[in-house]
């Protein structure tokens, strides 16, 4: 197991490097120049500009700049946000927990709904329940997150007036009241992001259970006289969920996309809304860093999925 872990970690490094190359290539290919403003400013003499360019190494060839950028990123020097007037890494670390909380909670919500529904639908394929679940799944992934978000605000905040539609980080209440307020404001974003996941997950679970449920060992379990409930929960679901782990990990890039939209709608102070506001404010260091963080998170979740997969499925060899 230890060796397997190390091997997976080593596989993750080239993909991180590859992602960083893609990101840097995009940045290097992009027209525009951080010193454009200086260039149009007649008060700045050309030699000062040239000196500044040389100081920041902007005239070096692209590979040299890439290695320097990568070294700086690896050392934790992520640059300085000119808009927020603080180090980029402090800014991101402030925002990251909120994003991870919303994404994590929505994934748990999605699994809690998708697994029972998917399993129940698969045990009765083409029944009324299955067809209704299937239709809802289609509706679920045809509804873009931004529209579900607006619909939720319309129904729960404006018509019913149950939930607040702006996420506030500075709630003044204490004790239980604090938790209650937090839950209330997090409910809609989590539900929006979760429902977006439920749709595709339900179909994965159903397909995966259908693959397993007709295998001979399930018939054997039934023939032994085990109850249907035991057969489904202990024999079928356990095996059927193994491929679902991978599919959930493959969905992560889409989840981050959904998280950006959700954070923007509900004004959650996470890294997704930070990305949008930095783009609107032309804050390049923050934009690059947040994009890279999202890429790292995707690689991290793939890694976790691989490890969980190895742990769930003893047939995977660790060598």
């Amino acid at each position, binding site marked *: 197991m230890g060796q397997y872990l190390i091997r997976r970690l080593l596989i993750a490094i080239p993909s991180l490097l590859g992602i960083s190359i893609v*990101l840097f290539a995009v940045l290097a290919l992009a027209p525009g120049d951080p010193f454009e403003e200086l260039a149009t400013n007649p008060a700045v003499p050309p030699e000062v500009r040239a000196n500044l360019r040389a100081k920041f190494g902007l005239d070096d060839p692209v590979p040299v700049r890439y290695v320097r950028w990568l070294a700086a990123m690896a050392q934790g020097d992520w640059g300085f946000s000119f808009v927020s007037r603080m180090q980029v890494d402090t800014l991101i670390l402030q925002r990251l927990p909120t994003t991870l909380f919303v994404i994590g909670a929505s994934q748990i919500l999605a699994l809690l709904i998708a697994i029972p529904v998917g399993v129940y639908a698969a045990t009765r394929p083409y029944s009324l329940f299955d067809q209704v679940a299937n239709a809802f799944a*289609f509706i679920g992934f045809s509804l873009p997150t931004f*529209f579900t978000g*607006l619909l939720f605000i*319309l129904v729960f905040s404006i018509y019913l007036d149950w939930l607040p539609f702006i996420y506030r980080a500075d709630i003044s209440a204490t004790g239980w009241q604090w938790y209650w307020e937090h839950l209330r404001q997090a409910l809609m974003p989590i539900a929006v992001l979760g429902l977006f996941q439920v749709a595709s997950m339900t*179909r994965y679970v159903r*397909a995966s259970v259908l693959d397993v*449920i007709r295998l001979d060992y399930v018939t054997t379990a039934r023939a032994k006289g085990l109850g249907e409930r035991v057969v489904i929960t202990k024999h079928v679901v356990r095996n059927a969920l193994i491929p679902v782990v991978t599919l959930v990990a493959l969905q992560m890039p889409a989840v981050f996309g959904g998280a950006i939209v959700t954070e923007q709608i509900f004004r959650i102070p996470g890294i997704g809304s930070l990305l*949008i506001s930095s783009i609107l404010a032309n804050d390049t260091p923050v934009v690059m860093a947040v994009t890279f963080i999202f890429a790292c998170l995707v690689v991290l979740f793939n890694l976790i999925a691989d490890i969980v997969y190895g742990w769930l499925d003893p047939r995977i060899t660790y060598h």
Partner: protein
Amino acid sequence: MAGSTRASLTTEAAAADQRRARHFSPWLDAWRRFRRHPLAVVSVAILFAIVLAILLGPFVWSVPINAIDFTTRLQTSSWQHPLGTDDLGQDLLARLLYGGRISLAVGLAAMVVAILCGTIIGAIAGMSRGWVGSALMWLTDLFLSLPQLPLLLLVIYLFRDSLKSAFGPEGGVFILIVIVIGGLRWMPVARLVRAQFLSLREKEFVEAARALGASKTRLVVRHILPNALGPVIVAGTIDVAAAIIAESTLSFLGLGFPPDIPTWGRVLFDAKDYLDIAPHWALFPGAAIFLTVLSINFIGDGLRDALDPRKVM
């Protein structure tokens, strides 16, 4: 085996049909299977109606999309304005009809880009036996683990201004969005095509063609590719829906088309601050996106039954 679950409701019935009538072409046969998916057939009708409305609507409903009239601000449905008006008194129906053209055009063009890239890369990876194939698959996996929306936003942030000055505000953004959405969606197609190629290239009919002296290009274009097309068409259909959602998302975040081009996502972006006083403004474009995407997804499901009947999911 204790029994088998049909891959889809429609397959067995279709197989029975096949036995009865042998003289149909494969496409007619696929159509027969497609017709057994009632929701897909209804979706074709709905999508056809939407496309027709978008193409011909502006000729019938000739209200200009940017006629500002502050006396009719934020009105709900009426005879003058069937879908109401926005905060400048512009007619929503005219704007949605015009925006739909752009949303659908972006979806179709991005799909074409994705299918072309995916098919070419998948075909090369599927035909080569050496390191080229594995390198291309590594690239595919790398692109699969890129976070799409952040990257999309990054590219648009960096390249928007220069393309705008080169191709004009509308054309520049259109080209950029199509290339970026298409360029980030080719991976599933490449994987599908490669898997198909790997199995097809060992089949007897390909070997026979090779024995007759067919060149590699001819093998691919005449023999392997047509047989690998079914799943690609299905993936392409779903890609149209995904690209429409991606474009709307960009516009909704205020980073897609410029404000004077009312794509569906852009109208939603403008409407979201008036949700409490004019909900109709947000509901109609949202419903338009939802209905279009839903019907495309159902058509994709029907096509999967028709062209690729073995696959469950």
